[in-house]
């Protein structure tokens, strides 16, 4: 009976309590608060000295100035003093008032509670100590109330047990008193002590007779109808529950909010909001307000500040080399290297060769790299810059102008004495495997059974420029390719330098992301950005430069394009200018950004601006995971909640034990079988890839049904277990994606958006139609379906895509397949199983209620 009325009280009071603390302060407390504030405001002016008027100055207290006994608690030295006292006083006074009533408080705090300590203080200060220290401030009340509370705590809970020692609880205000005296300057120890002493007396009940008799107060209250007239008035009869010691509470508003069943309805909307905001965020980035103009951050680069001399007679040299290269077209790799080596040796450079063999998807990629080192006349061979030319570019075209240009530049650079870094000229048979083998071997990170070590080395690589110049005719602009493996990017300063040299100094147009015409308007910017993100997300090597970037060597590939009037010499001058800039570097490129999205050659967004988009998408999974975890802890049956009396609506929903074994098992299973597709698609020979994919797609469609059937038949999982399966799966997905977002933003965002429907999948025990609609939707966004659709959209064969992926994984260490098969696919599988699940009807768990577990 008692407990019900108790609950009822909590229930009725709960709405009040849920509002902010200030709103429910009782009347007298408000009055005191207002008085203190008013006195402080009055004290701000300097015309009339409020503090000398109102403070308790022992020498000045006479019959005519007895008002000081009542005014000094309201007057404070300064704002800080007032604030601190208000913060300390309000909760204590509020308690006192709501327990004893407004009228009693008024009588006591304008009577004995202020006069008795004052008289004590005056007596000690004036008679015993013979001093005259004025005091003011409400802290005397703070200590008085603390004293009362301490005594009451002591009666309820006499000792604080520390190990085997019992510390009486009534001593706690003394500790506070000492701390305040020691720590707060100009605090009146004596004044506080007087307040505390009175508090102790009062708490022990010796001052009871000073309180006005209840009968009279009740009479006054009734006559004046105070309860009806005054807001926040606390009647004498309004007894509150005990506030001392540790008490059952439906506590602070935050705690109440947590208990509110409505809270559990919020997360899906919050998740949706996260996804929507994350996606919309992306589309805001190209706007002027969110993106920035690029700028050169590294002062040492000084791009375009030097005159370039590559022209004139070098053109004849170039033509001669071009004849040589044309002769070599169609010859074997070894023949080509033999001829090129003799040319380069003739220039007086040291040369070396490197054999490599890669195997991927049943195919062998082998060849021989040739490279030459120009030793810096002014350097100590501790640093080097690389100029790369692949014999064939990524499209398989002969690098007809690029190779002669590299030879010409080698001859030209050799003549200059200003190089402070070694220059390495590298000619590779293809655009991906060759540079990869060379860079791996340069950093001794190669598998020496298949890739030769380098016989000749120079210093730390500071930068690399690759030339992809297959175009026969004169060109209009330069296309900068900058995507590295796994979406890593070169330092933005390198791109900025090339843009500044080519665009600014030479007057050659610059394009990025195959945007041949860019009008710098929103649609073009967005398209550029999305293309960049897609390339970054796929993470494959886009040119000879890509292999350098994982080794922290900033690199770009330059491709001429368009029909214009720029000739090979212009391209050479761009390379010369860039090399002169790199030559200036005092330390590794580090000033500018490594994480950026370019939307035009001179406009970018940095990581701080775009990362929230991917993080929000990843966060939506985590939010849902947490919500499901919390939800799974509550009893699932809504009818029991309704049966309970309305009063206990806000007391906690009974928490139930969670059964973790099955959900953890399902998640572990889903995660571990992810090895199978990963292994399959990375090891199957190229010819077998399309049929394997087809087979896997069929299996993939059937697998959730099989799994779900197995679970329902043998384990008959409950709703709670379905929630937990989903919760764990989403938690893992959120975790992987937020980690991934720091490494490869675009991939994380891409996978996050594709997996976002998984947040909203749930079992449909009642409706088969809904179940199969959801399953259909899930199949439409399954990894296999997306790969298929993607391949069709870009006009590729699925087999080709998979072969590329296997090549990236085997040769370049591209981890996109791992993310697809080991992060996305298991989450998709778990989501499908949950959707198809048919949880048992309401099961009341046998375990004891009232406890939350694990």
């Amino acid at each position, binding site marked *: 009976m008692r407990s019900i009325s108790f609950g009822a009280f909590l229930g009725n009071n709960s709405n009040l309590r849920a509002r902010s603390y200030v709103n429910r302060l009782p009347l007298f407390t408000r009055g005191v608060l207002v008085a203190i504030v008013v006195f402080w405001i009055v004290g701000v002016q300097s015309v009339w000295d409020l503090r000398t008027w109102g403070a308790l100055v022992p020498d000045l207290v006479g019959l005519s100035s007895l008002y000081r006994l009542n005014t000094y608690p309201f007057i404070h030295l300064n704002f800080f003093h007032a604030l601190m006292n208000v913060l300390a006083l309000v909760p204590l006074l509020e308690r006192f008032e709501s327990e004893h009533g407004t009228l009693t408080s008024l009588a006591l705090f304008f009577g004995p509670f202020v006069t008795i300590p004052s008289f004590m203080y005056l007596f000690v200060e004036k008679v015993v100590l013979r001093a005259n220290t004025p005091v003011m401030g409400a802290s005397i009340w703070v200590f008085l109330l603390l004293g009362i509370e301490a005594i009451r705590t002591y009666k309820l809970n006499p000792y604080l047990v*520390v190990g085997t020692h019992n510390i009486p609880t009534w001593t706690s205000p003394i500790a506070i008193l000492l701390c305040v005296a020691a720590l707060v300057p100009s605090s009146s120890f004596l004044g506080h002590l007087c307040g505390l002493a009175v508090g102790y007396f009062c708490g022990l009940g010796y001052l009871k007779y000073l309180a006005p008799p209840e009968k009279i107060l009740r009479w006054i209250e009734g006559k004046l109808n105070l309860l009806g007239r005054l807001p926040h008035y606390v009647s004498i009869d309004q007894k509150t529950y005990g506030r001392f010691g540790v008490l*059952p509470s439906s506590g602070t508003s935050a705690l109440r909010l947590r208990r509110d069943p409505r809270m559990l309805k919020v997360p899906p909307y919050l998740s949706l909001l996260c996804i929507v905001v994350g996606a919309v965020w992306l589309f805001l980035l190209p706007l002027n307000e969110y993106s920035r103009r690029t700028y050169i951050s590294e002062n040492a680069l000084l791009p375009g500040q030097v005159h370039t001399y590559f022209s004139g007679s070098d053109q004849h040299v170039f033509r001669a080399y071009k004849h040589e290269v044309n002769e070599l077209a169609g010859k074997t790799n070894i023949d080509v290297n033999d001829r090129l080596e003799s040319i380069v040796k003739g220039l007086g450079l040291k040369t070396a060769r490197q054999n490599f063999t890669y195997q991927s998807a049943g195919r062998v990629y082998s060849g021989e790299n040739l490279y030459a080192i120009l030793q810096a006349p002014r350097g100590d061979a501790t640093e080097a810059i690389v100029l790369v030319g692949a014999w064939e570019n990524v499209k398989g075209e002969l690098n007809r102008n690029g190779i002669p240009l590299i030879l010409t530049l080698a001859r030209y650079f050799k003549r200059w004495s200003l190089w402070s870094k070694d220059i390495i000229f590298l000619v590779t048979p293809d655009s991906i495997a060759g540079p990869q083998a060379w860079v791996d071997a340069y950093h001794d990170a190669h598998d020496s059974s298949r890739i030769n070590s380098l016989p000749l080395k120079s210093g730390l690589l500071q930068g690399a420029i690759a030339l992809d110049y297959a175009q026969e005719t004169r060109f209009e602009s330069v296309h900068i390719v900058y995507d590295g493996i796994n979406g890593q990017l070169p330092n933005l300063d390198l791109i900025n330098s090339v843009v500044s040299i080519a665009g600014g100094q030479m007057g050659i147009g610059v394009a990025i992301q195959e945007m041949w015409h860019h009008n710098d308007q929103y649609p073009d910017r967005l398209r550029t950005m999305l293309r960049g993100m897609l390339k970054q997300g796929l993470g494959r090597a886009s040119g000879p430069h890509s292999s350098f970037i994982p080794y922290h060597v900033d690199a770009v590939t330059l491709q001429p394009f368009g029909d214009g009037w720029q000739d090979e010499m212009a391209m050479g001058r761009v390379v010369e200018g860039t090399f002169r800039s790199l030559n200036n570097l005092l330390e590794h490129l580090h000033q500018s950004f490594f*994480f950026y999205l370019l939307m035009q050659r001179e406009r970018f967004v940095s990581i701080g601006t775009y990362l929230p988009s991917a993080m929000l998408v990843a966060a939506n999974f985590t939010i849902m995971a947490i919500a499901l975890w919390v939800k799974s802890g509550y009893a699932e049956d809504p009818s029991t909640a309704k049966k309970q009396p309305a009063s206990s609506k806000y007391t906690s929903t009974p928490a139930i034990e969670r059964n973790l074994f099955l959900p953890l098992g399902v998640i572990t299973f889903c995660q571990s079988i992810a090895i199978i597709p990963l292994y399959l698609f990375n090891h199957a020979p190229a010819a077998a890839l399309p049929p394997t994919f087809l087979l896997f797609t069929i299996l993939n469609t059937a697998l959730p049904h099989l799994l779900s059937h197995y679970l329902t038949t043998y384990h008959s999982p409950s709703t709670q277990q379905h929630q937990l399966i989903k919760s764990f799966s989403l938690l893992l997905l959120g975790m992987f994606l*937020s980690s991934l977002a720091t490494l490869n933003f675009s991939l994380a965002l891409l996978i996050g958006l594709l997996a976002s429907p998984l947040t909203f999948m749930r079992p449909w025990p009642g409706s088969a139609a809904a179940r199969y609609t959801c399953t259909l939707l899930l199949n439409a966004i399954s990894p296999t379906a997306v790969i298929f659709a993607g391949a069709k959209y870009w006009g590729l064969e699925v087999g080709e895509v998979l072969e590329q992926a296997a090549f990236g994984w085997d040769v370049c260490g591209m981890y996109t397949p791992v993310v697809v098969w080991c992060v996305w696919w298991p989450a998709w599988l778990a989501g499908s199983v949950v959707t198809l699940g048919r949880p048992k009807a309401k099961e009341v768990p046998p375990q004891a209620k009232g406890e939350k577990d694990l």
Partner: protein
Amino acid sequence: MDGAKVTLGRTAALYAGAAVLRLALFTLFPGLPDLLTGRVEISTPVTSFKRLQEGLFLYNHNVSPYDGGVYHQAPLFLPLFSLLPSFATLPIFTYLLYIAVDLLSASALIKIADSGEAGSSVHFTSPRREKRWSGFIVAAVFLFNPFTIATCIGRSTSVFTTAAILHAIAKAVAGAPFSAMVAISFASYLSLYPLLLLPPLLILCYDRRNALKPIPSRYNFAVSNVALVVGVIAVLFQMSRFLTGSWEFLPSTYGVQLTLSDLTPNIGLWWYFFIEMFDSFRSFFLAVFWLHLSCYVGGLSIRIRRQPLVVLTLLLGLFAIFKPYPSISDASLFLAMVPLYRHVFPLMRYTFVIAAVIMYTTFLGPAFYHLWIYAGSGNANFFYAITLVWGLGLSLLVCDLTFAVLRDEWEVERPEMVGKDIRQI
């Protein structure tokens, strides 16, 4: 009788499973041990297997292993590992040794769990003690914890300390002070910080011993056991001196831990702080950090006097956060002890948050380390931020466990409050 046999069979199967898993990881992925050995999360300057090999090489060539300032581990590891066939030719023996040490730790854990000390100590019996996990499950949680496996594959020498600490606790629970003291001396000899576990361990020994056979004088008990620890450590020091020929090992092993002279990054909170520090403040802050680490011992031993095993568990958690060179091995030791408190799990409030934080940091830590060291696109702050979060996760677990245990005690004192939410005022 039959039940015991079944349990024995189950335990043997568990050991076999754990051993086979480890052996499979060692042999099927030959690159894995070296990869893990190089990870800063697993190998610290004072536990790294690479550094041990360096010390071993010097030792076998009659050079002081501490020359060169790479090796910072106890000298007695050297004869142990030189007795094994050379690692370069027959690594299998090293693998077997590490696996055996892990299994030894697990057997000690089984003894601790089956003693029921966690649920009912001499001075306190939890009303919830019925709900507990058997030694089998506790050992399984330890053996199949990814952190434990990674430590074993990474061949960090902290596994020896782990085994010594767990055996010390197991012996203390069994009421065998002598063995317990010898074990804790070994642990302290190997990595210094277990010495701080001595006071609660003494209390645990005393309680259990006293329950078996009353001890006349507790002071004599304390003094004799402390003397025993000092004696064993002294003998170990003498042996070390005999082996290395000088006292040089003292500054190179314990000195490094005390002064943090090797600032290789790890998952702890010290390295970044001391990298940033001006030299003039270094000694002051070293003192503060060590004082902070050791100040928990007294407080916890007094406050939770009635459950000394809890004190040991909480201290292991605190060490995993605050010691100078922590690694995931320390976390795995703490996480091995936590399942003993299955009975107070219902009282814990943040289990999901803790699990999520620890898992998030497990993945984000290596990612940020990669960004800093390899990709070059991040910096040290990335990794340090994650180690802070990792520390936060572990300290949440420590706090939550403390809360649960104290609440459990409190509910015995105040039965009327069972099941009610409380608010401290």
